[in-house]
């Protein structure tokens, strides 16, 4: 087996084996478990970096074998895959560090980190899947491996959230499976390829293809939090903060959005999807979700719930970008996949820090937290500003690209949506920032803990600062060739080339 086939497998196995080892370790061997976690994360990061470099140079990383009659298991690294794989590999490292600190002294850590690794292995699989079937395989594995994380605390509330999560996602899985199986019956095994498969398909099939498209989008839309399938996401907030970070930034909602990108570009082909008239309704739905999520976020008093509705809104930017017919819009959507991940994970890390250090969960309890925890609050503020779209932060780059895409696609209404949404973002984020810095402490913190010199536990302290640095850098360096933006441009060029 050549190296080019080995690397995708290694990227998967690094966290899969970590999961197996962690499950086998006894509950009490915390140091060893942390070591395994970090080693696996670093290994994966290295492998992904090598692969990204390879893809940039045009190396074809792929491996496949026949799994069932007529269906193959296929891993393949293309530019789009590396975008998502890179995102999860980088963020997994920080989430792991954060989780080790966050869960110190709590029970069931062996179970938690085992499923945590399994979850990231599934995400890698989703990213590297070479055909729709393999994508589905890992997509469902992701559902299963996140359930134990959502219900980790074992309280009634978290079990309730877990139940809803599983109902939504398995229901979505059924729609997706039906769509994939149907499509397979029509067209056979469908590897992802840049121009899609249905260019010039028999017009008699158009009806069926439209129906299948609806099924696929419905299935993927559940994880992506597309209205009206978003109900599970705010409830899942009861999970521990690293899990929320995982759900919102690294794995779950991203897997849904990524799947939609795959279906539109690499299965149907953007031209065909446009010709079939499928993009316009999807764009409207995404636009509605953007506004709806923001409006709902306004009224949330629980910090993490507010962030959750913000996610619903922000993820639909990606979908909106995809549906803006033209390379510019695509660039905006794709780069937002990454930018949103970095910004949202920062916000959740900070929210977790407030909860762990001060016992604060509600927005109105945050008064004066900036003085008590300056570094965390700076991180939160920058990430919030990024979300709003203040230049030169990450969010600004996205919104600019999306706006340019909307103009190019002659869908001016989308710019209006972007503007309104930015205003709403400001409306629900700025009050928090204001409270952090400008309100005096109203009452003693509900449950304050101290860890020596730093404002919080060291393992909780550094990850949000690093991700904040990243979100500043991706904005500042957007024009250089190392930025996510230029990578997204590379993808868009390859996608629209023919």
């Amino acid at each position: 087996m050549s190296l080019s086939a080995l690397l995708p497998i290694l990227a998967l196995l690094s966290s899969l084996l970590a999961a197996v080892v962690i499950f086998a370790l006894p509950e009490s061997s915390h140091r060893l478990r942390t070591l395994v976690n970090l080693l696996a994360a670093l290994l994966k990061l290295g492998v992904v970096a090598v692969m990204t470099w390879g893809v940039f140079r045009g190396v074809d990383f792929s491996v496949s074998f026949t799994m069932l009659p007529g269906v193959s298991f296929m891993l393949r690294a293309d530019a789009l895959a590396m975008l998502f794989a890179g995102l999860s590999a980088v963020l997994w490292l920080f989430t792991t560090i954060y989780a080790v600190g966050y869960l110190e002294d709590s029970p069931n850590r062996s179970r938690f980190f085992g499923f945590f690794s399994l979850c990231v292995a599934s995400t890698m699989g989703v990213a590297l899947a070479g055909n729709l079937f393999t994508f589905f395989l890992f997509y469902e594995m992701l559902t299963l491996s996140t359930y134990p994380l959502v219900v980790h605390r074992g309280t009634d509330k978290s079990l309730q959230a877990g139940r809803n999560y599983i109902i939504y996602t398995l229901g979505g899985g059924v729609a997706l499976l039906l769509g994939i199986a149907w499509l397979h019956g029509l067209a056979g095994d469908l590897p992802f390829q840049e121009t899609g498969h249905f260019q010039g398909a028999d017009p008699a099939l158009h009806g069926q293809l439209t129906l299948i498209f609806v099924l696929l989008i419905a299935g993927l839309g559940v994880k992506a939090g597309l209205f009206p399938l978003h109900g599970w996401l705010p409830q899942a907030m009861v999970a521990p903060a690293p899990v929320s970070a995982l759900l919102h930034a690294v794995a779950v909602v991203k897997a849904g959005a990524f799947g939609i990108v795959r279906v539109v570009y690499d299965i149907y082909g953007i031209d065909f999807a446009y010709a079939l008239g499928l993009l316009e309704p999807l764009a409207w739905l995404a636009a509605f979700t953007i506004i709806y999520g923001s409006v709902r976020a306004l009224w949330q008093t629980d910090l993490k719930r507010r962030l959750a509705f913000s996610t619903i809104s922000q993820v639909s930017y990606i979908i909106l970008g995809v549906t803006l017919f033209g390379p510019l819009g695509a660039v905006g959507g794709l780069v937002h996949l990454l930018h949103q991940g970095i910004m949202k994970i920062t916000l959740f890390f900070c929210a977790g820090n407030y909860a762990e250090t001060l016992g604060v969960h509600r927005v109105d309890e945050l008064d004066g937290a900036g003085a008590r925890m300056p570094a965390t609050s700076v991180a939160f503020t920058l990430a919030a500003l990024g979300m709003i779209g203040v230049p030169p932060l990450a969010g600004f780059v996205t919104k600019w690209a999306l706006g340019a895409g909307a103009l190019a696609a002659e869908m001016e209404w989308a710019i209006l949506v972007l503007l309104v949404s930015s205003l709403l973002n400001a409306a629900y984020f700025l009050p928090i920032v204001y409270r952090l810095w400008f309100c005096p402490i109203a009452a003693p913190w509900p449950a304050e803990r101290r860890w020596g010199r730093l404002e919080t536990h060291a393992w909780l302290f550094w990850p949000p600062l690093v991700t904040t640095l990243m979100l500043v850098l991706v904005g500042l360096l957007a024009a250089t060739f190392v930025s996510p933006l230029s990578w997204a441009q590379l993808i868009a060029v390859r996608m629209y080339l023919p």
Partner: protein
Amino acid sequence: MNQWLMAGLLFTPLAWAALSLLLDFRQGRWLSWLGMLIQALVSLGLWVAVASNGGFYYALAGWEAPLGIALRVDGLAVTFVLLTAAVATACGLHAGVYLDPSKSWQRYFWPLFWFLWAGLNGVWLGADLFNLYVSLELISLSAVGLVALGGEAAALRAALRYLFAVLLGSLVYLLGVALLYGQFGTLSLTGIAAVVGADEPAAAMALLLMLAGLALKTALFPLHGWLPPAHGVAKSPVSALLSGLVVKASFYIAARLWLELGDRLGSHTLAQGIGALGAGAVIWGSWLAFRQPHLKQVVAYSSVAQIGYLFLLFPLTFAVAEPVSRLAQQGITLQVVSHALAKSAMFLAAGNLILSVRSKRVDALGGVSHYLPFSLFSFGLAGVSLMSLPPTGGFAAKWLLLQASLASGQWWWVVVLLLGGVLAAAYVFRIYRATFLEDRASDDFYHPPRSLEAIPMLLALLALGLGLVAEPVLSVLALPFEVAAEVAADVAVQP
């Protein structure tokens, strides 16, 4: 070589049954370990032999059919022989540790176990309708004996129910055999298939009777009432054997009959009707599984539901194109294999959990994840296969069945397949949920030995891995069968 393998395959279980009857439980355990090893090797050897040289008929006592009894050794049969070796070995190893050797009646476990195995091998290889009846009875009576072992009132009640159901099923099957023999003068399935014509009401009635009898023995809805008590009350290794293998034996015969004779003796109504009953089983069984308060009852009702899928074979192979029929057959085979592995894993793991929390109730499982994560994980993995989520064998089976339904235009089975998965998720997640609850007052858990925990895990991993290697497993089914054409020609010439 085949000579030796066949002799080993047929002789060992019967001989071990006789020998272990003379020993007590502990000695029988030693003996059985050896026997399981031999069986596993012989089964593997036979599988290799068939994979390299194709299938063959084996004339017992040197008399060819129709005068004597011939065994049909083909890809499907060896697959099931191998499956039996795997599952029965696992259950036997588990039982050796799980059962209490100080009880005098446990010594009878081993002979019953080996007779059961012998009967199963007889069914997989059987090509003679009457011999299949005797093999079925061998299975039924030893299974009833295993359920009744210990002789408590609840066990006896379940065993009696079970006994009456399987006896009636066998007789109805035999009635069909009588009709077929009366008309065609032979008991060999191949022989009958060679001479049967399209318009034969008596033979059609015979097929109907045989299918009805076998459906009762397979616990097809609405004839499933006997299964949950029997599988729920038996000791866990026994439940695993019953759910994993025993119900499959009667289904296997029904499927063979249908595939040989169904195209001429069956009808569209019959095929769809059986499929509808299967669909009813999937939905009703899952619903009841969801409502059971006891852990093992949940698993037992889940068997009722999973068996329902098997009966989709009938509509999906009747009057459809050859490739579609093949897809359906492959899907059903995978379903049988993966359900056997997953369900036995589940029962064994459930036994460990029950042992650990000292209660049979689902709601007593709270907090068990701290103490028995391994067994719980096995249970969970097996559950994934039952929900038919990827990458398990259950998913591979469902995928093939979906393709077959879509390709034959029978979209209503698609609904059943998808709904069944969702319902399975409902009852499996109910148990996961119970184990995550953190409100247990006491920390009084018993730790079963490691070996008890390892066995269900292995089975669950096999069920999981089956989905990834489904292609090579299925390729064995399509192996050439050397003598089939010859014998069929022989029989056709005779009349």
